[in-house]
Structures are given as structure tokens and as C-alpha cells.
């Protein structure tokens, strides 16, 4: 059947290309997954302190966090990546002295470093928005009831904030998957890098299509998992949110029905 497909679209799909270079694409995909996983995970851990600093009453702390966030959200990721990757080369002696050169020598670690800082800036803003979305009155009420700071966070603020944050955090994960393609420009052989390598060898356009399909599968999977998670988290609000939910596509509609009946 593949052969038929190929005969029908000789330009678009070159199946024999996969025989020869399929393994390369897979190894690129693994690198992409590693880079995205590492930077999103580390970025998440870093984002919470930044978010707290940004909301802090300490003028210096909140200003510093604001500068960090503004810089990383206001400049292109590619520029930040160049700054880390080529900038590290310039201060190589100093880095060698403190033993960090081994880290910054690798394009792989440079990418993770730059992506982590970038996504931390975005994620911290998402967290800030989510925390701010919890009505102040609830916190005051919890305080008046004598709950401790930890109990307020654990039982009042976080459960509601997570609900707000799930969707934008998931979108951030999707955009990191897409942004990670920039790693290819600084010589890392991730999915995009391997694709460029294969194209430079074969000048066969179909390798870009295969690459696109792999990226599409990744982003689409994340999007669907995200919808499912969001539905599961907001089950208790379903009755009142029904109207909103119903406009969001058939996938969710099916789930809603199942949840309401089951």
C-alpha cells in the first residue's frame, strides 16, 4: 500500500527515504524529547521562586524578577540561545577556571540552559496569573478561620490555581516542543537537526514532511492529554461550565457526556 501511495505522490512521499534515514529521525526525536523534558521540568521548578519573588513586597526582589521575566519574554529565544552558546565560548578561560566549561562546551547543555530560563520566565507569569485569580476574600476567610499559611496554600489556593494554570502550562509545553527546533541552528542533532542533515544529503523535500508529521503527532498528543486532564480536574464545575465546554469540539463533548452520565 505504501508503494501505491508513493506512486500517487512521487514528490511528497519518498518511502525509501525512511529505510535509509528513519533511524536518524528517531534518534533526533529522542534528543528533542530529552531537551524539552529537561528544560520544562527545570523551568517549572525555577518558575515558582521567580513567581514568588515577583509577587513579593520586597521592592528589590520584585524588580529583579520583573527584569528577568521582561528580558526573556521580550527577546527572541534564538537571540538568547546565541548569547549562551557563543557567549560561553568568549568567556571560556573564566568558565574553565570555575569548572563550568565542560557544561557550556556542549550545544546540548547550552540549549537546555537557555530553554530552561526562557520557559521559567513564561511559566512564572502563568503561575502569577493563576495565583492572582484566586479571590482575595477566600484567603482572608481562611485566615479568619485560623488556618495556617501552609493549610491555606494546600487547601484553598493551590487547588483553584492549578485549575486555571493547567491549560496555559500545557500550551507552554507545546510551544517549548516547537521552540526546541531552534536547537538545530546551534548544531544540535535533534529532530530538526537530523532533518536538515538528511535534506542537505538528499535534497528530498519529503523529509521535511516526515519531520512535520512527527512534530504534529507530539503537539496534538499533548493537546489532547491536556484537554482530558483539564476535564478531569474541573469535574466539579462541569454543570456550570457546560456551555463553555460544549463549544470546544467533539472530543471534549464526548468526555463531558460520559462524565455527566457516568
Amino acid at each position: 500500500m505504501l508503494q501505491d501511495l508513493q506512486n500517487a505522490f512521487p514528490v511528497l512521499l519518498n518511502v525509501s527515504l525512511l529505510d535509509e534515514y528513519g533511524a536518524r529521525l528517531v534518534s533526533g526525536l529522542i534528543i528533542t524529547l530529552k531537551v524539552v523534558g529537561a528544560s520544562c521540568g527545570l523551568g517549572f521548578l525555577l518558575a515558582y521562586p521567580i513567581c514568588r519573588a515577583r509577587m513579593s513586597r520586597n521592592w528589590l526582589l520584585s524588580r529583579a524578577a520583573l527584569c528577568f521575566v521582561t528580558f526573556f519574554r521580550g527577546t527572541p529565544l534564538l537571540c538568547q540561545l546565541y548569547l549562551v552558546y557563543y557567549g560561553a565560548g568568549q568567556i571560556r578561560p573564566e568558565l574553565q577556571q570555575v569548572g563550568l566549561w565542560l557544561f557550556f562546551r556542549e550545544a546540548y547543555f547550552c540549549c537546555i540552559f537557555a530553554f530552561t530560563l526562557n520557559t521559567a520566565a513564561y511559566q512564572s507569569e502563568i503561575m502569577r496569573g493563576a495565583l492572582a485569580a484566586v479571590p482575595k476574600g477566600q484567603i482572608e476567610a481562611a485566615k479568619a478561620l485560623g488556618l495556617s499559611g501552609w493549610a491555606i496554600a494546600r487547601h484553598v489556593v493551590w487547588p483553584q490555581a492549578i485549575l486555571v494554570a493547567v491549560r496555559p502550562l500545557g500550551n507552554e509545553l507545546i510551544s517549548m516542543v516547537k521552540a526546541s527546533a531552534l536547537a538545530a541552528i546551534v548544531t544540535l542533532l535533534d529532530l530538526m537537526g537530523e532533518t536538515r542533515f538528511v535534506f542537505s544529503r538528499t535534497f528530498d523535500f519529503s523529509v521535511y514532511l516526515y519531520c512535520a508529521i512527527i512534530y504534529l503527532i507530539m503537539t496534538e498528543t499533548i493537546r489532547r492529554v491536556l484537554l482530558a486532564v483539564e476535564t478531569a480536574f474541573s469535574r466539579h464545575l462541569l454543570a456550570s461550565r457546560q456551555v463553555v465546554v460544549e463549544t470546544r469540539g467533539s472530543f471534549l463533548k464526548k468526555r463531558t457526556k460520559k462524565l455527566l452520565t457516568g
Partner: protein
Amino acid sequence: MQSLNLIIGPDGWGHLLLEGALVTIALAVTTVPFGFGGGLLLAILKGSQRRLVRALCDAFTTFFRGIPDLLSLFMVYFGLQALLDRAGRLIAPDVHLELNAFVAGVIALSVVVAAYSSEVWISAISAVPRGQIEAALSLGLDRRQTFQKVVLPQLFRIALPGLGNIWTILLKDTSLISTLAVMDLLRAASEASRYTRSPLLFYSVAAGLYLIISIAASVLQGYFERRANQAYA
């Protein structure tokens, strides 16, 4: 002092960087009408009664929203180049048509921006109260007139915040064009740092210029939003 000389000295690179910044702005501004216009067209076509049209538009949006912008750029660039090569060979065997990188960049960015902005336009269209459309139809306007005279004038105001977000993405996405052969801000910084061997300095300056551009853009966006909402304040 030495680094200042590298930028504004007689042999400084500041000139190249500023020109690059202008190219970056030009890229973004040229893309806006095609990208946002294409997005609006997609949004209208997605409301079509023909199933095939809807499906094609949905596929287009899903595809270009789901793959990296860098990949879209390469696909449009190399795809167009391949098409041009064929067209050239059709005219005469030895004709070689070269795709201008700036034009290719604008086309590629427009495709991406159209895909992103179509969602914004759709939600703006659905935000126009249904009653208004029913009222227009009952007054005897046909579907086309209803869209042109009732829905369209309000769309811009509703869509403005969403379009603003896409505009800031677009400004940063222009840096991807530096991987083709366009001398934009980032590529200017790359050239400068390659010759002077001080990438830290030049990429920092480039980042600073990008910051200035995006802060100016957000101030401008705030101004437009206030203006558009004046009648509703």
C-alpha cells in the same frame, strides 16, 4: 571603552545593527496585512457551508500551529524554491529563478501568522452578539451584507488583544529569518560578533534592541486598544 568603540566608533558596527533592526521591523510590518488578512479569510472560510472547505482550512491551521515555526519557514522556503525551479525549467531549460529571501520570509511568516490569527478572528466573530445578526437578517440584509456592515466593523476591536499577542510572537519570529539570507537584527549581530570575536557584547546589544522594539510595540498596542474602546468606556 573598547566595547563602546566597537559599536559607535568610526569602524563601529552600530550602523549595521540599526539597519538590521529596521529590516526586522520591516519584516514584521510587511507580514501584518497578509498574515492577519489571511487569518480573517481562513476564519470566514471555516464558517463555510461546504464541508470540504472547512476541512481544508482546519487542516491548514492544525498543521501550521502544530509544527515549529522554524520548520514552517524552511518548508515554505524550500518548497517555494522547488516550485520556482520547476517553473523556470518550464519556461526554458536554463532559466534559474532565485527566490528573494525577504519575500520568502514574509510569505512564510504570513502563513504562520494566518494560522495563529484565524483562531483569534473566529472567537471575535462568535463574540458578536447573535441578536445583532438576527436583527440584520430580519431587516432584509443578506448574509454577505450582514457580515460586511454589522460583524466586520466590530471585529477589530474585539480581536485587538489577541492580535496583539500574535504581533509580539511575530516580532520575535522574524529572528528566524536570519537563518535564511536576510540581514536582520540578529544576523547583523552574528556578523559583527564573528568579525570582532565578541558575541557577548553584540548579542546583548541585539537583545536590548529587541526589547526596545517589543516594549514600544506593547505601548502602541495599549494606545490602539484604548482608542478602539473609547466609544465603549
